[in-house]
């Protein structure tokens, strides 16, 4: 026993040494663009006693919001890592908060993850150290939003689609295409809603992929200037019919309840809560396909508690915890095993590769086109942000 203990401690020392080298490396490269040169941990050591998490609302519940909803306490009891957590509202906010260096672990969507890697704020993750990695759906692993050059930067958490939501009593016939919020949105002028983030430009690009094939869009996150301008043009036309842009899901639910919004992009979880309240709304995955999110738990490159961070990543990927967390948020879990702890996997099409393939998961647009084109330069996220402010006008 003592021997094991000593080995573990040596492991911790090695881990610490590696971590400090990683920190130095991060410092050394941050001036030159902060590329991914950090090394992943090779073995685990003693847990540090605390771990600090940054996540979307509903991802880290310790019973303080609802005594019934608690998957943090079992983790704390099992590992001795005391959890402190902070929630963020948008991917951009998460990106900025990670710069503070106060967090060991972040649950990032694809529109933040690549930026975090590029800025050197997160470290590669050695998935061999995570027992629950094997059970995760293959179509979620080593994707462009959670890996760079074949190096994994985290463990998949859950995924979902941005769906077209509408008031069944006010929007007839039931839409099957995004055109009700774009080319045909005049019919609902002033009652159309859209997601308030630059990443929403990709939704217009998905629509254009189907309706303007001449533009040659292959990936809604890899738009050259001409394709980008077409998407922006579409959104500027849509702006005239927008009632309000939403980013707060409670505000969105309220707008649909009162009828201030009747059609627009939304989430399954919003539909679930509206359905429970008896509001006549429905969601559909339109023919054109859609955008969505696939979130990744990542570890800060300067994590103060890397061992507790690994413990959390492994724990949150375990079927029971993953089922609890993704079920509470309203998205598909990351493994089949998790579905055994949930009754609603069907509604979220968990593991349905066909369904998942219609979703373009949020990725950070960068100048080097994500679809592999090398003859043109794509518009990067800064360009997207600028255009988004202009679209809103």
């Amino acid at each position: 026993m003592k021997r094991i203990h000593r080995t573990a401690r040596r492991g911790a020392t090695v881990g610490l040494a590696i971590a400090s080298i990683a920190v130095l490396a991060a410092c050394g490269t941050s001036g030159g663009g902060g590329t991914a040169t950090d090394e992943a941990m090779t073995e685990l050591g003693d847990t540090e006693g605390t771990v600090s998490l940054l996540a979307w609302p509903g991802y880290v519940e310790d019973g303080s919001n609802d005594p019934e909803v608690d998957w943090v306490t079992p983790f704390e009891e099992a590992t001795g890592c005391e959890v402190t957590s902070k929630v963020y509202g948008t991917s951009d906010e998460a990106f900025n908060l990670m710069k503070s260096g106060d967090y060991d672990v972040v649950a990032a969507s694809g529109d933040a993850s690549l930026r975090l890697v590029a800025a050197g704020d997160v470290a590669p993750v050695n998935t061999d150290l995570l027992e629950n990695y094997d059970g995760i759906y293959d179509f979620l692993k080593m994707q462009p939003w959670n890996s760079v050059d074949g190096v994994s930067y985290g463990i998949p958490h859950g995924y979902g689609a941005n769906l077209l939501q509408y008031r069944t009593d006010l929007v007839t016939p039931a839409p099957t295409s995004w055109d009700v919020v774009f080319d045909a949105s005049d019919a609902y002028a002033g009652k159309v809603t859209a997601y308030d983030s630059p990443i929403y430009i990709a939704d217009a690009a998905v629509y254009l992929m189907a309706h303007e094939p001449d533009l040659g869009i292959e990936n809604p996150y890899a738009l050259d200037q001409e394709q980008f301008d077409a998407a922006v043009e579409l959104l500027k036309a849509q702006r005239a019919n927008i009632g309000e842009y939403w980013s707060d899901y409670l505000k969105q639910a309220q707008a649909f309840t009162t009828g201030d919004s009747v059609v627009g992009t939304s989430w399954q979880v919003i539909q679930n809560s509206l359905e429970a309240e008896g509001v006549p709304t429905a969601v559909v995955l339109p023919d054109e396909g859609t955008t969505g999110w696939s979130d990744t738990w990542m570890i800060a490159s300067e994590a103060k508690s890397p061992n507790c961070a690994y413990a959390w990543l492994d724990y949150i990927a375990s079927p029971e915890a993953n089922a609890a967390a993704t079920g509470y948020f309203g998205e598909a879990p990351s493994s089949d095993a998790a579905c055994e702890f949930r009754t609603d996997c069907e509604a979220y099409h968990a593991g349905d590769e066909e369904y998942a393939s219609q979703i373009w998961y949020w990725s950070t647009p960068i100048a080097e086109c994500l679809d592999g084109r090398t003859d043109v330069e794509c518009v990067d996220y800064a360009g997207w942000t600028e255009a988004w402010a202009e679209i809103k006008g």
Partner: protein
Amino acid sequence: MTIAAPRPTLARRLSSTLSTHPRVRLALLITAPVAWMAIVYIVALVLLLVTAFWSVDSFTGQITTEFTWDNIVEVVTGALYQTVTLRTVGVALLVTIVDVVIAVPVAFFMAKVASARWERILIVLVLLPLWASYLVKAYAWRSVLSQEGILQWLLTPFGLETPGYGLTAVVITLAYLWLPYVILPIHAGFSRVPDSMLEASGDLGAKSWATLRLVVLPLVWPSIIAGTIFSFSLSLGDYITVNIVGGANQMLGNLVYTNVGAANNLPLASAIALIPIVIIFGYLALVRRTGALNNL
């Protein structure tokens, strides 16, 4: 018989030193407030100003501390910023006008018509909304103005409908939020007008309207301007109300907010934040001559 000299305790010595050294006294007295002003106000403003001349590396998101005019040029020449600035100033002016139109009669009634007891009650009623949180009030207006809100219910019998979420809703909500700040200085202004002047004006044959226009208005004018400074400057910087009831519209505050949060472009946000500062300084310079600044 001699009176024993008081024992020179430390406190007593200190007090006599202070009484013979007025400069030391002054220094001790104002160090704290001046330091507070300098640190909290001047330093923050200077940092803001300096940041506006830096830029952000778009790939890593780090701030580059090299001097550049780019942000200022973009904010001054960009069509987006001109539109949003015009919209924001327009909203601020409308809110100010609405508030003054409501506040002047209310303040006049409180100061000159109501009994002393009623005046106190009315002051409490005017202050009452300030005890509730800003957010609660803004969200209350969100539900009032919604399609199924109370406003719609009230207006339907007259064939009208709620303006819904948009700039009209923003003006209504902001006018409501800042009304107490406009009523109070105007009320103070009316209170300072001696009744004897009104009586003298009447004795000399002036009708009520002439008295108001020629006697009262010139006297309370500085107080009205003081009130407008509050509503105008508070509206100019607001971004929460427009987020809650503004529909798809954005104001200058929203641009600052998205550039700090979403776009991670602090330098551009600083440059945008300079717009309302410049406007307010212009407004203050304009109203300085009226003596309104002595009425704040």
